């Protein structure tokens, strides 16, 4: 059964067709990548799944539930978490606080109990903290726990954002260019983490990534897009060898592996 169904979706920005009748399915437990040159519409696909944009046509379903009737803030409660291409962290908060915001969808307390900080709120805080500490251990963020985001280097922020998404305990994780801007070692770590996320945590991953090394290393299937249209779908090797894909990359003057 496919976890995410993205069917015949079209989105226009004025005259520009950013996503043009695109369909794909992501199966449970799969690591699936969207690749394509700049402006292909990859991030737009993510924003459609996050419900930031309404498609003109098509249907998006998650675990057979329609997504299109939901508000953006209802999407995470289904078990979909994401990162952003241009890191969107809470700058004036610490790493710990950022990760705790990831627990928002699990919060059961209400305004009154929180103002009184009843024992049940305290207990819940402990549970949130335990989950967050597991994420911190997993991503080795211990040294940054109480640091403010605004003072952190780019690579660490990228990891914190991954951590915040993991803290939501998602079923589907959307990663928009997880390795962009990372050093070689950091990218290597990212590969291990994504593998662990898939194998140990059993989370399905949909990602956008330019780094074909990473894509080949961790992805089961790849969808190549260009100008909003599907070019090819298949294993990383198949897609990389596909003539349309090669043409699209050469056409924009970009190398096959960026």
């Amino acid at each position, binding site marked *: 059964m496919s976890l995410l169904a993205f069917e015949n979706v079209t989105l226009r920005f004025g005259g520009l067709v950013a996503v043009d009748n695109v369909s794909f399915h992501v199966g449970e437990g799969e690591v699936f990548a969207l690749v394509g040159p700049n402006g292909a519409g990859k991030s737009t696909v993510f924003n459609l799944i*996050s419900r*930031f944009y309404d498609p003109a046509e098509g249907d998006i379903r998650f675990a057979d539930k329609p997504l299109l009737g939901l*508000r*953006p*803030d*209802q*999407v*995470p*409660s289904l078990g979909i*978490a*994401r990162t*952003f291409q241009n890191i*969107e*962290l*809470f*700058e*004036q*908060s610490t790493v*710990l*606080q950022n990760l*705790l*915001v*990831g*627990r*928002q*969808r699990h*919060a059961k*307390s209400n*305004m009154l109990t*929180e*103002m*009184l*900080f009843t024992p049940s*709120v*305290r207990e819940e*805080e*402990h549970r*949130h*903290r*335990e989950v967050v500490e597991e994420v911190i251990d997993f991503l080795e963020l211990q040294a940054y726990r109480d640091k*403010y985001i*605004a*003072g952190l280097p780019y690579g660490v922020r990228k990891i914190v954002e991954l951590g*915040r998404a993991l803290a*939501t305990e998602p079923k589907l994780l959307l990663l928009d260019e997880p390795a962009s801007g990372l050093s070689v070692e950091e990218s290597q770590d990212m590969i291990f983490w994504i593998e662990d996320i898939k194998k140990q945590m059993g989370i399905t991953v949909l990602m956008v990534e330019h780094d074909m090394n990473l894509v080949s290393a961790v992805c089961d299937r790849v969808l190549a897009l260009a100008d909003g249209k599907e070019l090819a779908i298949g294993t990383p090797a198949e897609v990389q060898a596909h003539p349309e894909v090669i043409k699209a990359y050469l056409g924009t003057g970009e190398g096959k592996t960026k």
Partner: protein
Amino acid sequence: MRFVFKRSYNDDIGWFKHRTQAIYYMVLLAFVVALPWLLDDFFLGEATNVLIWAIVGMGLMLLTGHTGQVSLGHAAFMAVGCYANIIMMQRGVPFIVALPLSGLITGIVGAIVALPVLRLHGIYLAIATLAISVLAEDIIVIAEPFTGGVSGLVAPPIDLFGMQITRYGTPTAFYFITLIVVLAVLFAYRNLLRAPLGRAFAAIRDSEISAQAMGVNITATKAISFGLSCTATGLAGALLGHFAGAFNHETFNIVLSIQLLLMIVIGGLGSIHGAFFGAIVIGFLPQVIAIGRDVTSSLFGFGSLTIPGIEVGVFALILLVFILFEPMGIYGRWLKIRTYFELFPFYRKGMFKRQKSYLKTERTR
């Protein structure tokens, strides 16, 4: 240098960072409780005034400092609380019921007003809330049967446990009523900040888009923030009514709205401390100006003439100085000094660079 060793998650959840800090605050609390025996009636009145400012300061801090939503309309909500309280009391509701109710009413009014208004961002939000402030003045005048129109209302004495409490008659009792409200608001505020809702506020302030992606309902959360902010503001308004004794629409004019916002900016956005520091500045400023006037007139023989609007002018000047030289407010300055001593001799310049970009929700929403 101080190293804080944490042994349990409770250490991070607690009200205080470490035991010494808890002791500081207990000493401060004892001092504040002892104040009526340390000050004469005049200065106790001034201290009460500062506490009232601090209540509304906390209210506005929650909204602007922690949720990132500017309001230039909070004088209107002080008015709602003030009039609601007195109007209820005039109709026989005892103070002990009327006070919390006036907070509640103001909170509900605030949350309802927030729903359309908080869709706006940045300067548009500021203008819309400013309009609320303007509108409120007119409504007070028009609603004469309830509000007494231009001539205003006179606050009846507070009838509590058989005592007749007024600001001048029983300054100590009035001080303690105010202090209890301060502590109650402080308690709720501090608790919220360490709970999911408080984190949702900060999330909205820093990035609406990713707050949403984490499951924060932006509209509802902003309305809650506005409502809670207005609850505190309404309580302060109700107390202000008793403090002033008599009031009319001019008590709650736009200048008050602006002063409120300036207060928390000067105090330091994004911290509860800032609300208190700002309240002290704004509360004592008229005294300082009066003293300054006396000094200049005795030295130079002029200045005994009162310059209209001098307070607002001085206030604007102080604000300008803060925005230029200390955008983090008094609390920020205090943090720097403290960190300097705690880390001595390892303090680096630029350690506090990060906090300069407050109120940027406009940019990264």
